[in-house]
């Protein structure tokens, strides 16, 4: 196995373990189906959040979700009534979700590493170009309110 494939596999494994843990423990959401590797979500229709990291490895984690899922996650996280989330709440919570998933994935990807993680950048429905890159290896996690697409891309190891 080439080193590149090995890195990609361990990044996917880290992501596959981190996402359900964060969603179940912090958002009380269980997956409706097993996750699928691959796919190309239509990002222009989705809410997108991204965190960049550097240190022992550098790269980024980006996640994308339809607004129905973003809102239901926000309401679960903040204990709001149904359909009571404001756009600013959704931005906060989607960013926090990206931050937690990134932390969980990095801790699994390089447990002995040392990282600095940026403040999450979140855009609702019309993500700008800097949040979305064309070469993301997506993993699709299915929930009752829609799919959550996650790309965890450690780009280079120092």
């Amino acid at each position, binding site marked *: 196995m080439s080193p590149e494939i090995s890195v990609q596999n361990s990044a996917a494994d880290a992501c596959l373990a981190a996402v359900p843990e*964060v969603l179940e423990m912090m958002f009380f959401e269980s997956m409706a189906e097993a996750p699928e590797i691959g796919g190309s979500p239509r990002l222009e229709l989705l809410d997108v959040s991204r965190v960049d990291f550097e240190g022992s490895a550098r790269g980024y984690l980006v996640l994308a979700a339809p607004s129905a899922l973003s809102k239901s996650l926000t309401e679960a996280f903040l204990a709001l009534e149904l359909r009571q989330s404001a756009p600013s709440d959704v931005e906060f919570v989607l*960013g926090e979700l990206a931050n937690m998933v990134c*932390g969980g994935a*990095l801790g*699994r990807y390089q*447990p002995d590493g040392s990282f600095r993680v940026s403040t999450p950048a979140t855009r609702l429905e019309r993500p700008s170009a800097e949040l979305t890159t064309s070469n993301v290896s997506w993993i699709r996690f299915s929930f009752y309110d829609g799919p959550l697409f996650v790309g965890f891309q450690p780009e280079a190891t120092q």
Partner: protein
Amino acid sequence: MQKDVMIVDDSPAMRSFIRRTVLIGGLEMGRCLEAGNGLEALTLLRNDTVDVILTDFNMPVMDGEQLVRNLRGDERLSRVPVIVISTDSTRNRILSLQALGVHGYLCKPFTPERLAQMLCTAVPDWQAQGIEERYQ
């Protein structure tokens, strides 16, 4: 027995989540002071104190590590237990903060039970109530 808590996190959403999680964990809270970074926390504690501080690590202006260093260097506040709550689950980070004397390091995600257990260890006379006791 109620205890006064300070929650330090730059995200108001996360502060709200932590406050709620303490209560879900069965712990009675007295006052709950909130700060958006380490400097705001130190300003609030200038003429006040709490029984335990829950702090994020990555924050603007003053991060969790600088906050802990300042607290440990302050005679009046040096014994206040500090629990760091962070998404960073790498061993180096946890060990460096434990070396500074934090009472606990809680990685996100976490359950209310885990947070309550850590708080009860940090504040020995604080006991979590069971669900039966809470709803009697």
